[in-house]
């Protein structure tokens, strides 16, 4: 072999770049690890003089008790169910609002809208996604509940509380609609044009093409966008804390108030109880529960993506 090919040049900047890029990748992994460490060290096992949450309250009580009364000393009860019911009630109402609206918007933009129409529709939807969630919270509290829900439900002979899960679910649904619309529109548009032409050539109407060919072909991505939106709804904090109130009730009645996991965490972290008190420490147990739930949803959405993806040549 000639000497020019064997002499090894040490390229220092290459090594440096490799390290810099590795640090970037490692940063997000380290952050996740640190968060998990903080959650575990406060909830499961605390080093030193601190006593972790699950060292005082058994996991069995946490998972089976139906009362959430985070008090220090006598009378404190730590059953996660009221918070879970509040969280899922709001998330399901949000899905009921955002799935039809988001999917409909996506199909309209991709299959029906004139290109010029799409040019302004998409940015408008993205503006909706940019509104701070506090604003949505007050929108629910000051507009949706008194001006829409109250008259409507009174007409039906029902009453609605000032703080209620329904208005919270509706605004969270409005908030995540752009997420579903945007993600679904991307996957719907990636369905090859040739498939649509083939469907039209078989005598399909525009609706046949959308409902029988395009949406089924993009189904994996659409389902993944639903799950992602659901997971956002589960994690949504401010709008829900404002609109649904802070009363941890084990109820599936959307007309009453409720407290969600995130709502409680805001409440606990801004409260005035001592940092190592059990009421404060319970926040970490709730945090772990939330973490596990959203992780499970995200893994499920990834699995659906892989399992049902269609590969086009």
């Amino acid at each position, binding site marked *: 072999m000639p000497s020019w090919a064997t002499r090894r040049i040490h390229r220092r900047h290459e090594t440096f770049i490799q390290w810099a890029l590795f640090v970037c990748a490692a940063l997000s992994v380290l952050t996740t690890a640190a968060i998990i460490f903080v959650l575990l060290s406060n909830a499961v096992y605390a080093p030193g003089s601190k006593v972790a949450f699950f060292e005082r309250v058994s996991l069995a009580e946490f998972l089976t008790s139906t009362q959430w009364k985070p008090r220090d000393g006598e009378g404190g009860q730590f059953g996660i169910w009221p918070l879970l019911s509040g969280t899922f009630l709001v998330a399901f109402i949000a899905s009921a609002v955002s799935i039809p609206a988001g999917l409909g918007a996506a199909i309209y933009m991709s299959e029906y809208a004139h290109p010029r129409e799409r040019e302004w529709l998409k940015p408008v939807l993205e503006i909706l996604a940019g509104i701070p969630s506090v604003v949505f919270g007050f929108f629910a509290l000051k507009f949706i509940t008194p001006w829409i829900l109250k008259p409507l439900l009174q007409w039906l002979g029902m009453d609605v509380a000032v703080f209620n899960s329904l208005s919270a679910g509706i605004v969270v649904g409005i908030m995540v609609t752009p997420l579903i619309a945007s993600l679904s529109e991307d996957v719907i548009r990636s369905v090859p044009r040739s*498939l649509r*032409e083939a469907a039209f*050539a*078989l*005598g*399909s109407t525009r609706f*046949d093409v959308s409902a*029988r060919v395009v949406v089924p*072909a993009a189904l994996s991505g659409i389902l993944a966008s639903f799950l992602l939106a659901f997971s956002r709804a589960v994690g949504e904090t401010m709008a829900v804390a404002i609109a649904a109130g802070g009363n941890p009730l084990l109820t599936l009645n959307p007309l009453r108030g409720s407290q969600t996991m995130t709502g409680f965490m805001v409440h606990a972290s801004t409260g005035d109880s001592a940092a190592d008190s059990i009421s404060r420490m319970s926040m970490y147990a709730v945090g772990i529960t939330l973490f596990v739930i959203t992780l499970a949803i995200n893994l499920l959405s990834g699995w659906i993506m892989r399992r049902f993806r*269609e590969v086009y040549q």
Partner: protein
Amino acid sequence: MKDREAACLSGQWFDVEGGADMAERNSGLSVPPSVRGVDRNLDTSSHAAAIDVRNMNFYYGEHQVLFDISLMVPERSVTALIGPSGCGKSTFLRTLNRMNDLVEGTKCTGECLVEGQNIMDPAVDVVLLRKHVGMVFQKSTPFPKSIFDNVAYGPRVAGEKNRSVLADLVESCLRKAALWEEVRDRLHTSAMALSGGQQQRLCIARTLATNPRIILMDEPASALDPASTDRIENLIGELCANYTIVIVTHNMQQASRVSHQTAFFFKGHLVECGPTMQIFTSPSEKQTEDYITGRFG
């Protein structure tokens, strides 16, 4: 023997048996045998016109791509459209079931009579038109569904729900498309797992299931291997007994094998249209002769 090798190398693979006239062969004006079912001496003058295009002009925006096309397609026969890339033959084909309506900014003038009805009339329902005039594309486009659901798509869209009616229809269409024996045991598996040639025959079966009278084929075999191409060509030979077929092809030998009538397009103009044997042996236009002998294109 030398000659024969040379002929093979130059792509003139066709049969030299029977001592075909050397001069004719050298000029390239020789025609391969047709596929079974296509009788190129068929007299179509007694056939009614399935499609009768009169003075058609077509524009993409300001850009005119078809100039004053007039062409008659006799029913139950095969018409091949040939010509170099970009000559407008595919665009012309797509006007015949108004697929170009899906493209923004296109305009078409003139008349196009399909069985006597002018399909350019705004009152024409394109959904019904496309059931009547089916289309097979260059790239096979199976839907990501089962083989059964692919073939049953058209009838279902048309409102057919009866399971046994659909099952019978799927079987008969797959048989007509010469695919039944290969897929009968896996009708409910994904169509995406079929080979390219099978997918294209599935697309033909799917088109047949809408019960069309006319089938438009846009280079249906250009992405397939020789064996699959052969099967598609034989299929065209079988189908032309009952259907009117218009096929766009880049492959001139294919055009001569499968068609009764050939139309040569060049730069948006219909240069010449006539019986396939005549176009390939004694074209009346110089441009046609130059094209089919491979002098350009």
